[in-house]
């Protein structure tokens, strides 16, 4: 326990002893996490947009004249079981007549003497899906029912939206990974400066019988402190920026930026700990080889 306390206090004292490298490491962690956090917020809000757009995706299914209402109900129940279908709404012939009247202000029976509007069904697709949504298999399944006369959907538009969204997600993920990898290297090189400055300490520790893990621990703990301070700064700046940005956006467009401060702090803190442990371990391990 005393040994742990010693290693912990050494890591903490090193922050003060190596002020310049500590500043560099904290600043690079802060920058990395601020960029990574911004990307995550953008990603999260883009996800909200795609969910909104997916909520608007509609497949309109028109049934043959000869199909009775009871059979339509049974077929629509089957539609609900198709993978990717969120909900269905049946529009009977009489519902269609009412819709016609509300939209055109005239009764179709007065115009043509009978109701030519077919019974139909609106199929809504799921909104929550991380990968690209392909609507075609759903359409093909619906078309395979003999009761179905025609299926209308915004195929090209949906394909474009989904393709762009997919590319966006891939680019954001690659960018995020790249930033994190770069930050590990930056932190590793910053810690190496500290290690060179502490060459005497490392040699002294090795001569008095310190194990590799004992030599490594204070540097890794120091790295974690850098990471935590960087994460706190990045969280604070991001939250302030997001609150201001959200207020401005709301006053202009009634849209707010969606994010959870606690989740953001949690993710940035975890990321900082992981990248600082990886960075400092890499640096000290290379030195001790």
């Amino acid at each position, binding site marked *: 326990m005393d*040994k742990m306390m*010693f290693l912990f206090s050494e890591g903490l004292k090193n922050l003060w002893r190596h002020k310049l490298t500590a500043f560099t490491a904290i600043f690079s962690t802060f920058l990395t996490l601020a960029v990574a956090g911004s990307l995550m917020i953008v990603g999260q809000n883009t996800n909200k947009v795609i969910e909104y757009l997916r909520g608007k995706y509609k497949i309109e299914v028109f049934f043959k004249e000869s199909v009775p209402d009871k059979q339509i109900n049974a077929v629509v129940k089957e539609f609900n079981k198709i993978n990717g279908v969120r909900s269905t709404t049946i529009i009977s012939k009489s519902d269609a007549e009412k819709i016609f009247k509300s939209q055109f202000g005239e009764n179709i029976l007065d115009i043509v003497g009978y109701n030519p509007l077919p019974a139909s069904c609106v199929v809504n697709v799921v909104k929550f899906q991380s990968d690209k949504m392909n609507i075609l298999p759903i359409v093909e399944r619906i078309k395979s029912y003999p009761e179905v006369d025609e299926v209308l959907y915004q195929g090209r538009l949906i394909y474009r939206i989904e393709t762009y969204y997919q590319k966006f997600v891939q680019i954001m993920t690659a960018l995020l990974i790249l930033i994190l990898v770069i930050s590990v290297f930056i932190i590793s090189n910053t810690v190496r400066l500290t290690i060179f400055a502490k060459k*005497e300490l490392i040699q002294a*520790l090795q001569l008095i019988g*310190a194990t590799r893990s004992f030599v490594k621990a204070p540097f890794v703990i120091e790295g974690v402190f850098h990471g935590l301070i960087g994460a706190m700064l990045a969280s604070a700046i991001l939250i302030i920026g997001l609150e201001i940005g959200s207020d401005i956006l709301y006053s202009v467009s009634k849209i707010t930026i969606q994010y959870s401060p606690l989740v953001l702090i949690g993710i940035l803190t975890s990321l900082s700990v992981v990248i600082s442990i990886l960075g400092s371990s890499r640096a000290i391990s290379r030195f001790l080889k």
Partner: protein
Amino acid sequence: MIRLDNASYNYPKGSGVSNINLTIGNDEFAFIIGPTGSGKTTLLRMIYMDLLPQVGKVVVDEFDSKKIKPRKIPFLRRKIGMVFQEYHLLDDRNLFDNIALSLHVIGCSKDEIVDRVTESIEEVGLNGKEDRYPEELSGGEQQRACIARAFVKNPDIILADEPTGNLDPVTSFELIKLLEEVNREGTAVIMASHDYNLIKGRGHRIVEIQEGSVRQS
């Protein structure tokens, strides 16, 4: 016990030691004497296994250079206290913390560290200077601090490599007396020096090394 069996180590650019056969007992005080570059430091480095002999072997208690795994070397070094000409005290911590470092490494409790460090500071006559940083101590005081750091962990062996190299004759003699006191308490002391006048007539074993070979012991 330290035993070197036909131990040789040659540096890529030449020099080193060849075919060293030497045994040093558990409570022995031995001087390694020889001119600069004769191989004294190489011999000591082989004992604390900073260098592993390319031929032959070094055995220190249960540690055999031929069989030892790198992760076991720290455990050998915990049995050895080292004193160098250049002190190797850490500038960023005071005398107390410099000496305490050895005990932190072996996992002593806080109370035990305070007791043992205070005791060793008293033994080397540096009481009252616990809070001083190395730069605030004279050369002799720094070297005494090194001795305190070496024996605070109750080592079986103390290796001293030219510990008087930077000290005046009076301080040098005081330092040797201090090492003799440590030796009387049962710790083997091996001290390398190039200054024959300093060690002659003290009644200890003298091992002479020249051009990497032990000439007489």
